[in-house]
């Protein structure tokens, strides 16, 4: 149980990579978790190539939600809504079906493997993805 709060997760949350408002955002989206009241805002600046140029996030949520937003903040540049959607599906599969974590830059998501046994916390990790995907959609 305490593995949810192992150092790696706490470190990701504390790093808060990409935290803060993005002054020149193309789009800003706020999503809420109605069950717990958590709120995540993602500001996204899209490049001319249709890919994310920069993100900023504001998280009013738990450690898991903060850590998830931090992973996105570190890796979202160069992605788009479709590719982020695929990563979200990989994260879901990892949490719900025990699938391996995504490879490459997003391999950090493996840190969240212990969350798979706690269904009530899956949404904590997925909420930031919902925000950034909406913010990077047309």
């Amino acid at each position, binding site marked *: *149980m*305490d593995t*949810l*709060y192992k150092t790696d997760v*706490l470190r990701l949350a504390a790093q808060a990579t990409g935290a803060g408002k993005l002054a020149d955002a193309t789009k800003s989206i706020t999503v809420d978790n109605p*069950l*717990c*009241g*958590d*709120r995540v805002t993602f500001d996204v600046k899209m490049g001319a190539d249709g890919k994310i140029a920069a993100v900023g996030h504001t998280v*009013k*949520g*738990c*450690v*898991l*939600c903060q850590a998830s937003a931090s992973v996105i903040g570190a890796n979202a540049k160069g992605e788009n809504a479709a590719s982020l959607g695929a990563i979200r599906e990989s994260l879901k599969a990892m949490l719900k079906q025990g699938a391996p974590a995504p490879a490459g830059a997003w391999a950090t998501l493996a840190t969240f493997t212990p969350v798979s046994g*706690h269904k009530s*916390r899956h949404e*904590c990790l997925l909420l930031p993805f919902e925000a950034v995907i909406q913010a990077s959609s047309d």
Partner: protein
Amino acid sequence: MKVPSQMSFDVEAIRAQFPILRTLVHGRVPLHYLDNAATAQVPEAVLDAVRAHDELRRANVKRGVHALAEAATDAYANARTKVAQYVNAREDREVIFTSGTTGAINLVAHAFGATLKAGDEIVLSGLEHHSNLVPWQLLRERTGVKLRFLGVTEEGRIDTGDLEELVSERCKLISVTHVSNVTGAITDVAAVVRAARTVGARVLLDGAQRASHGPVDVQALGVDFYALSSHKMFGPSGVGALWGRAEILAALPPFLGGGEMIRTVTLEKSTWADIPARFEAGTPPITQAVGMGAAVDWLAQVDAAAAAAHTGHLADRILHGLRAIGGGNRRARVIGPQTMERRFPVIAFAVDGAHPHDICQILDSHGVALRGGHHCAQPFHESRGLAGTTRASLALYNNAADVDAFLSGLDDALSKLT
């Protein structure tokens, strides 16, 4: 609830009646169940009554003439009598079985609401559970009634000082919680009733948090409707009750239509049964109601004053413990009255830098069951600038070990999170 001196109360004898309290959480740590404001556990007497009903008397109620149908009908009627006695109703027919407190309030919002018109006013408060807010917002959309809100004091109580300003001749109903599910504060019901009577308005009390702490006297309270839930009173889920004054209920139109709630039905029109059947369309939650009857039987034989003294002392320890944990960036703030004066043992708190869900998750590893979030009281939390709080809520079976586990687990959680 003022804390009297600790009286003799055999909590271990009480605990022995709750099988679930003997289970190990995650197969390794004792359960310390402090989520009673959400759902209380069930004693053997209730488990036995539910099983016995389905083993020996299971049948649909009313109309059937066979032996099982008659036995089930008797059991259902007896359950109504027990609930009526528990709330000190004048007559059994003043008790309507519902799906719970939410169902009871929705019933009033529809049936009583049907008698209101645009411009009529309903007074609520900023401390309400969503179940005593959303049904009225929906009524406002249907009819154009106006909702007005009593404020909440800094201490976390409904501010009855607002009554004079908010309760006008247009007010038809004041609907407020009896005990807050967040702050534990007891509402000054007498002030609410006085204000309502000056303008001829009705009063509904949400008794979900109060009813598990001993018998309720609706006549002494002087209210018109009282809503309660079985699952918070050591009974089954899926059932609750609305108590209403007979003369008021008898004058209201039905809420749901269907079997059992009619007198006659033709293709052109129907006429309605008398209360309580008018408000119990379809097959009711029979077994659950029998279980609720067993639960109030069980509750009624407990020394409520001794139980209140017991839980009051435990809650006092939690309040003191939360203050002791304070310091630096680990300060815990109780969101509600800071002492046990005029409050029940429902204690919500916030810690800067520690999210309620993270606290609850770590406490769970200690076997401590808490609840984190807005507790279906989002407007109140937002008014305090909080997304959520962590809540510990006590029942009469909680003991000193539960409090010890809570405080040491919280210390562990805060050392990890802050």
